[in-house]
């Protein structure tokens, strides 16, 4: 292709191709290394968030710089600085004409900056989280320590976190695309492609998708558990938790690998278990060190984990099953893959509505059954929407190479 578009001799064009490929690989290595550090920071942030939620409930929010806040905001600051550093460095490298940093490998922002889209999006997200911190503190000083998750600046932090985490998905997504493109070039030139690298990047992409759930599902923590539509009462939880369909479907579609949904569900389940076993001791140790007393209303379970689906693996298996069936049918038309995504989403909605009932509380058996059954079709409908959205989202992730 390069040979055809230039007037170089074949030998020169080939050597230029090799050096271009090497520069591209070096650039990818840099981006991946920073992205992996950022992914570790995301885990720190998730742990800090869950710890903070438990700290609020168990001992109360006595000041701004509580240990969980220090953990959370240090992760946010480090990630924000990494993004800023990468955006500035890549802009500088672009202006200097460093091989591998050009219009094909970077996104242009505000007409000045040239950097991978993921770093820009994550940077904006992290900046907004930092912005929400003093505002949240202000809200707590006005309305007390028991402000619910559905408070303006908690929602601001959660939305900002989602933007930041989406950026990380884009980072790994673009690297996965670039790795596929390099392999395609190598195959065309009959050079052995680096399959392990593809697998690693796809795995990291799956992890980055799985970590969207712990932050997004926190929105299910609310005092309002039900809503009424005409004579029928519905539970809110299954509708929120069906958001999992988005992540599960997107993982298969973005990586193009059957089994990705189950792996995503497995990673999420491991995060869930990890938080379940570490948060209570973390609160107990620090509360003891700071000589703080447990509140009378201190919960006996990890607050955040209570809204994390326990049986997400079932949803993962169902999604993979749908795509396996699609492969067996050898149908790869656009509308069929979209329909498969919607079906997979509906099945995730079904599994969540049937299996996950943290909203049950102490309502009587008859009311529970009627709400439970009524929530099933609605959750499936919401799942269809999430499946469709995941399909669209995954296409843009697969196309993104900068």
């Amino acid at each position, binding site marked *: 292709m390069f040979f055809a578009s230039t007037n170089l001799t074949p030998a020169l064009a080939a050597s230029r191709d090799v050096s271009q490929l090497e520069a591209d690989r070096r650039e990818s290595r840099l981006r991946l290394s920073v992205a992996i550090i950022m992914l570790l920071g995301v885990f720190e942030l998730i742990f800090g968030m869950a710890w903070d939620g438990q700290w609020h409930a168990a001992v109360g929010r006595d000041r701004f710089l509580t240990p969980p806040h220090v953990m959370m905001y240090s992760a946010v600051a480090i990630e924000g600085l990494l993004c800023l550093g990468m955006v500035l460095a890549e802009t500088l490298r672009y202006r200097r004409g460093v091989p591998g940093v050009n219009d094909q490998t970077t996104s242009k922002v505000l007409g000045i900056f040239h950097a991978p889209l993921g770093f820009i999006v994550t940077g904006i997200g992290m900046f907004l989280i930092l912005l929400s911190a003093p505002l949240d503190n202000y809200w707590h*000083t*006005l309305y007390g320590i028991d402000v619910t998750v559905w408070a303006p*600046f908690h929602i*601001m932090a959660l939305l900002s976190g989602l933007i930041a985490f989406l950026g990380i998905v884009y980072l790994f997504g673009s690297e996965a695309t670039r790795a596929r493109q390099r392999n395609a070039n190598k195959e065309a030139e009959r050079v052995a492609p680096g399959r392990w690298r593809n697998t690693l990047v796809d795995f990291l992409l799956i992890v980055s998708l799985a970590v969207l759930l712990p932050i997004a599902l926190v929105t299910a923590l609310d005092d309002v558990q039900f809503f009424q539509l005409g004579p029928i009462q519905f539970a809110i939880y299954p509708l929120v938790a069906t958001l999992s369909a988005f992540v599960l479907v997107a993982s298969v579609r973005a990586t193009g690998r059957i089994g990705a949904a189950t792996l995503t569900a497995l990673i999420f389940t491991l995060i869930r278990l990890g938080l379940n076993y570490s948060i209570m001791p973390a609160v107990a140790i620090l509360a003891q060190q700071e000589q703080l007393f447990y509140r009378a209303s201190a919960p006996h379970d990890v607050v955040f984990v209570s809204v994390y689906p326990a049986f997400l693996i079932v949803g993962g298996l169902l999604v993979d099953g749908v795509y396996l069936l699609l492969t067996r049918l050898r149908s790869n038309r656009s509308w069929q893959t979209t329909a498969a995504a919607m079906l997979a989403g509906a099945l995730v909605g079904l599994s969540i509505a049937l299996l996950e009932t943290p909203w049950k509380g102490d309502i009587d058996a008859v009311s529970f059954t009627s709400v439970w059954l009524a929530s099933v079709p609605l959750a499936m409908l919401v799942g269809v929407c999430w499946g469709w959205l995941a399909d669209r989202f995954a296409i*843009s992730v697969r196309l993104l190479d900068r």
Partner: protein
Amino acid sequence: MRSVKNLAIILLLLFLVAAFTAAGSSPLATQDAQVGPYRLLLSFYSLPRVGQQLNMTIQSKIPGQQVQFSQVVLNPAPGTDANTVRVSINPDADNPAVYDVYVTPPVRGPWLLHLTIKGSTGSVTGNIPISVAGPPVIPTWLGWLIGLLPLPLLIAFIWLQVNWRKARREQVKQEALQKPSL
């Protein structure tokens, strides 16, 4: 000549510091309180504001009456959603009849300074109400407006991505069509 000028500036600065410090040694506000048989005087050297250290002294209002304060905590009054806050209380170095009190209230609203007083008429435990001022309150709708700021950003980003995806798809199609001719 220059050193004399420098010395003059330093002396002026020292004078200003001394003048401002002297101004700070008189209380900004005082409050009377009655706990059991004891009449008390609270002198505020900083006003009770949320998130700021409250510096005040507490003493008996009756001259010559010796009282001791112990087990002092700041409890949220009904209607204030907060935890009990620890209070630092020590007899003043210059005047042991006066106690220096330091505490940082984390939430605005009414609080109760809970304390035990020991004096000539026995030991009593009681509460002294303290009103903690907060920052100016913004309306809830404005809070939500600011809080939901990332949402339009997210929607705009998704919209841009949708447009970019369409353009990119077309580009990929065009490249695929051109490939065999190369």
